[in-house]
């Protein structure tokens, strides 16, 4: 049972503290496990702080997303036998990540939020940000993908020739 008024204090990797409702933290597998491991009385308000390995700026974005998604169903549905698509990101989430486009460090922000979602075990946020990353390379040529991801080709010529043969139908 989750007590809606119960609050959790999160301490960030750069020393800040943020207090949030348990209604939000219930979506984080990491925080919920930390609370369970403390074996404290669930009625205790406020709860002892949970340290998260996420910086303050990123945690604020995570909390903004959690606030919008506080009523999402739990557990997060695992759709292993369904086709996944990158074009089904909800409108609010699209606008949420598009706000970063104007930032100089938009790529690093996306990276930080993906990493935070992974560390905090927030499956919905992780899926959404992975789809956002997928959309950045969707429909791009191999060279464009390399440039976007800043990855160097480390194939030998023989390996590259093999991959080109395998991908011939993709380049029609």
């Amino acid at each position, binding site marked *: 049972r989750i007590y809606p008024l119960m609050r959790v204090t999160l301490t960030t990797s750069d020393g800040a503290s943020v207090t949030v409702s348990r209604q939000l933290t219930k979506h984080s597998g990491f925080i919920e496990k930390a609370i369970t491991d403390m074996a404290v009385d669930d009625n205790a308000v406020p709860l002892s702080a949970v340290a998260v390995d996420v910086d303050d700026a990123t945690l604020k974005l995570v909390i903004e997303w959690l606030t919008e998604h506080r009523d999402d169903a739990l557990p997060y549905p695992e759709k292993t036998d369904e086709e996944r698509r990158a074009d089904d990101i909800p409108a609010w989430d699209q606008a949420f990540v598009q706000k970063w486009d104007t930032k100089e460090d938009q790529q690093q922000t*996306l990276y930080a939020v993906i990493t935070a979602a992974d560390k905090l075990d927030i499956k919905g946020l992780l899926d959404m940000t992975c789809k956002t990353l997928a959309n950045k*390379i969707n429909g791009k*040529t191999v060279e464009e993908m390399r440039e976007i991801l800043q*990855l160097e080709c480390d194939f030998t010529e023989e390996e590259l020739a093999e991959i080109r*043969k395998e991908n011939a*139908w993709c380049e029609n």
Partner: protein
Amino acid sequence: RRVASPRAASKKGSAASSSSSSIVTRSQRKRMHEQMTDDYLPILDLPNEIISNVFSSLGMKDRLRARVNKKMNAIELESKYHVKEVLIEERSERRDPGTIRWWDIRGQLITFYEDKSYSSHCIKIICQNVSIGKLKIELTGSSEFHREVYNLLKDFEIGHLDFGPVALQHQILKEMMVDSFFLDLTKACKILHIDKCDNVTPEAFHQVYKNMTDGSTRLIEFFTRSFAREKWITFLNFIEITFRRGRFFSNRDIEVCIRRSISGHDHLLIFDGSVEITIIDRSPFEQSGMKFKLHENRESLENAKNTRGLDKINVHAV
């Protein structure tokens, strides 16, 4: 790995960056470095499961293209994914961009053009980590490439495999569709639809039927539209049912029904345990159709038996 900086890249001296077999040319490298900014997403620093998650949201084409280096290639090959519908097709001309087909909207297309050469490795790469809900084949050529592609189908994990009328018009598939190939296909999918099975024997149909009844196959449905009438009569003999002059003879515990059709092509339905056999009985000079359907529960079986328009037929003891 990501190029951390031009300086770091040149210090690495990897095969790709320093040897004569380098893939990235000097001018390409220069351009890449010019375009590099401090803001990048170091994808390879993410755990493999997350990179795999990114791959799983890409279409098949983008997924294969995203194998831009060795690590990305290795992760792509290891991560399983599911595609709802795929059409493998062959075209003689480039598609008119204004033409939108059903598959363009609902499924993913693998298109081969007749004037280009391809390696069957493209199919081999795909089939090793994908599961496909429905795979439809519309290849038209008759080269070694086509033979290899057809042979690879048995390595796929497929829900519904559909060889439509386009594919079966082509000589190479007609030649290949013999008992051994047919039996391999029945092991690769849950539903198999083959328009023509001219070279498949009643013995092979019987083998599939036995596999379905004893649960030794994933197959729950098989349908063919066009094969010789005497074949299904012979097949019925294998399961101890005789069809002679429009009457059924058997000592087995079966139920037989008929659904009359205004076209004259009556449907004969035989309920044998949990398997329903439907035979589309045309005149002795026309090709027949046949379907096996395994009902996975009693409710499904009872619903099939109680379908409107079915008339029960007496089964005579031998």
